[in-house]
């Protein structure tokens, strides 16, 4: 059975304190790994798609990387506005659907 596991469930950082969020997956025939950001009371907002091991993508203070078993979302020098829940999802096979993890709730404090 396909599984997507995110850790930690919650993370509290001080402003400027860099860290990483983890998304481990067991899925046959991975056809894409997606990172989304979700603010309270809002829908998920697309951040990155990664397709193959070794691939990296960056956007402002965020950098996503992918290996054959997991993906990391690195947050460099975070700011309070980076506080949100970060969701990881995978697509496989024909790729009509995404399987989501339960998310990491990040809080960045001054």
């Amino acid at each position, binding site marked *: 059975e396909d599984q997507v596991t995110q850790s930690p469930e919650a993370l509290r950082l001080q402003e400027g304190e860099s860290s990483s969020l983890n998304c481990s997956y067991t899925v046959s025939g991975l056809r894409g790994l997606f990172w*989304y950001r979700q603010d309270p*009371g809002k*829908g998920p907002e697309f951040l990155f798609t990664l397709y193959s091991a070794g691939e990296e993508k960056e956007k402002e203070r965020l950098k996503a990387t992918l290996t054959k078993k997991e993906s990391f979302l690195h947050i460099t020098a975070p700011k309070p506005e980076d506080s949100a829940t970060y969701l990881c999802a995978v697509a496989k096979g024909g790729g009509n659907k995404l399987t*989501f993890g339960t998310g990491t709730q990040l809080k960045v404090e001054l």
Partner: protein
Amino acid sequence: NAGVTQTPKFRILKIGQSMTLQCAQDMNHNYMYWYRQDPGMGLKLIYYSVGAGITDKGEVPNGYNVSRSTTEDFPLRLELAAPSQTSVYFCASSYSPVAGSGNTIYFGEGSWLTVV
């Protein structure tokens, strides 16, 4: 550019009532989806559609129905509401299958449903 629009934003239903959650997208996307999100759980796919007139079940379809008469609209029908259907519902759309395509799924703002 409105993207994916869901209505209503909030609704309280009594057990046994029925209702329809509306979803519309203006991005000319072929694929549309309904997910539900429960506290501490990942988003679960309820139904999806690959084009007008074509729908298929996701992981958790029981208690729901959908139709897709136009490219733009994908309503979700709840029949005989039960407390287990209390959740946040997200409609989403994509231009094509997301696997390996360079495309992604875009989500609406959500509809909060409470069944009492």
